């Protein structure tokens, strides 16, 4: 459903993406792992054009698009089908939780307010926030804010949802509630592309893991294969530091 070919992105002299290919099918839950600076967040942000790629081609299921010459109209269309969940939630601070979720529907897609609120309330119920429709972000905990952020993305009914380290800014106790929501969404068949350091999510929910380093894809495959039998040396080095070596049961 989404195919990216040869994406390049540089900031001045610093080349962050050095030719990345990516293919995502409907229903895939793909996790991108890698050290900081590997380009994983930049890759994600290029997909919905929060960053403008220098070079590359993308195919969103219809025709091939040259990312260098893409038009504003095309970007706008792509954003209708790709939703984003941010590391620091980026909720609209001057809007309530419900308004956050419905703003894109009412103003962006011209959906009737009543229908938008119906969709919004259902989305908020699904993330466990039925009591918080009229609360402002300043009145919500980090975990609650991120769940609103996820509800906001889900309500748009996108083809694919991009998650940029969704739990990295949360207290450890709140990480669990957000991961649970993400697991439920994955179970419902949502196509997800997730940059994260939460290995449990990658091992339990993802059907594909991509390891990036230095602006390129080093290795990709099924979670079991990557975590237990990594092929590349770089992958092994990275996993050694991230995964616990042994688990004892006494």
């Amino acid at each position: 459903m989404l195919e990216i070919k040869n994406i390049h992105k540089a900031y001045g002299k610093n080349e962050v993406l050095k030719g990345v290919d990516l293919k995502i099918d409907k229903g895939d839950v793909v996790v991108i792992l890698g050290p900081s600076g590997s380009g994983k967040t930049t890759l994600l942000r290029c997909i919905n054009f929060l960053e403008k790629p220098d070079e590359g081609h993308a195919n969103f299921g219809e025709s091939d698009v040259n990312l260098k010459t893409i038009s504003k109209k095309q970007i706008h269309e792509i954003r209708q089908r790709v939703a984003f969940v941010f590391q620091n939630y980026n909720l609209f601070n001057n809007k309530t939780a419900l308004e956050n979720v419905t703003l894109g529907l009412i103003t962006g897609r011209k959906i009737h307010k009543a229908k938008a609120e119906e969709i919004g309330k259902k989305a908020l119920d699904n993330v466990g926030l039925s009591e918080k429709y009229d609360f402002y972000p300043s009145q919500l905990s980090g975990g609650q804010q991120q769940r609103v952020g996820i509800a906001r993305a889900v309500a748009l009914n996108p083809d694919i949802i991009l998650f940029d380290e969704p739990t990295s800014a949360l207290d450890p106790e709140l990480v669990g509630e957000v991961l649970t929501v993400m697991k439920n969404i994955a179970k419902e068949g949502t196509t997800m592309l997730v940059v994260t350091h939460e290995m449990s999510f990658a091992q339990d929910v993802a059907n594909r893991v991509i390891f990036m380093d230095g602006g390129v894809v080093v290795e990709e495959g099924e979670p079991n294969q990557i975590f237990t039998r990594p092929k590349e040396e770089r992958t092994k080095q990275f996993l050694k530091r991230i995964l616990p070596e042994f688990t004892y049961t006494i």
Partner: protein
Amino acid sequence: MLNYKFLVDTFFVALSGAPTAILITVVSLLIAIPLGFLLALVRINEVKFFNRFAQVYVSFIRGTPMIVQIFIIYNSVPLILATIFTKLNIKINIYDVNPIWYAFIVFSLNTIAILTEVFRSALGTVSKGQLEAAQSVGLTNVQAYTKIIIPQALVVALPNICTAITNLIKGTSLCYAMSLKEITLRAKVAANVGYNYVEAYIDIFLVYLIICIIVEYGFKLYENRLRAYKGVSA
């Protein structure tokens, strides 16, 4: 001591100049708010050429005394217009023009410069993530600004806008140098009759103070309303 009858009478004389002062303020604001906002956007987005122009413009206005700006405009604009009018054969006597028009020019130019900086700094307090989130849910940039960014920037800008307005109101007192019949000039003229300057100055002070306190109170109410979404400070 003070001549109390004069004190009270002159208060109302001074007050009679208030409509003029308020008119200059309102006209200047109507012109300066949209233009100031536009220039603020130009500065933030570093639009080629206009960015430099905006920087120089603000520096110049901020760096020169308002009273001198008034002198220059009041003395040079009539000459320029007179030459233009004679060349185009327009039969308007430039010296019949009410000085309030020059006041409109000077104070608009001034307030544009001030508001550019006010809006530029206020917009800067809204994090880039708000715009990115708005774009991600499919809003156009105009929608993002009107619904999300400007409302949040406005809360921050309000105290500075209040300062700019009270400075504007007080600044109109300098228009007495153009023989414009506003608060200061009217009271001074009344004082000239019996040499009751101290009483006149007290009354002038009071009139400006009352107008500015009313403006401040209005802003306080508005600010409290806009701040509702920020919740109770931790």
